[in-house]
């Protein structure tokens, strides 16, 4: 019997820890766009690979940016 292929996902490192960015700026929409889906939803930590603290910072930054209409709350692409 064929053994189910065991996939070993590559461990992702938190982008912010790696680049030593301590403050996630809500004005930097180009960066924050990496952490939202094309529907405008915030990507989960298991997708982004961020550490707990930075995922939290990113989420708050995105929410601040949404309030100032820099990022969409929802986008009905498709």
């Amino acid at each position: 019997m064929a053994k189910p292929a065991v996939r070993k996902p590559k461990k992702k490192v938190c982008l912010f820890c790696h680049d030593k960015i301590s403050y996630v700026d809500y004005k930097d929409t180009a960066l924050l766009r990496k952490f939202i889906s094309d529907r405008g939803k915030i990507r989960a930590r298991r997708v982004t690979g961020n550490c707990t603290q930075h995922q939290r910072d990113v989420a708050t930054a995105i929410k601040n940016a949404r309030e100032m209409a820099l990022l969409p709350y929802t986008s009905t692409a498709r």
Partner: protein
Amino acid sequence: MRRYEMMVILDPSLDERTVQPSLDQFLAVVRNDGGSVEKVDVWGRRRLSYDIEKKSEGIYAVVDLTAEPATVKELDRQLNLNEGILRTKVIRPELH
């Protein structure tokens, strides 16, 4: 005294050249109360991600300032009373 960062979205029907002087008028409150304005950065016209007050564009401006908490509260109140201002946001960058 605390450092603040304030983002303002202004009505797109305003002239971009008049933005700086009219913001300065509002910021007089800060200077009179002993605070200081470090930087006024007018981003200019920008598309909004969603409509605010039926408008799809806005003029963005970011102001860095140092002031007492009460002064900033008053500044925010005055800005929100003005018709030409769609939205404001005050943030303390060092908290994050």
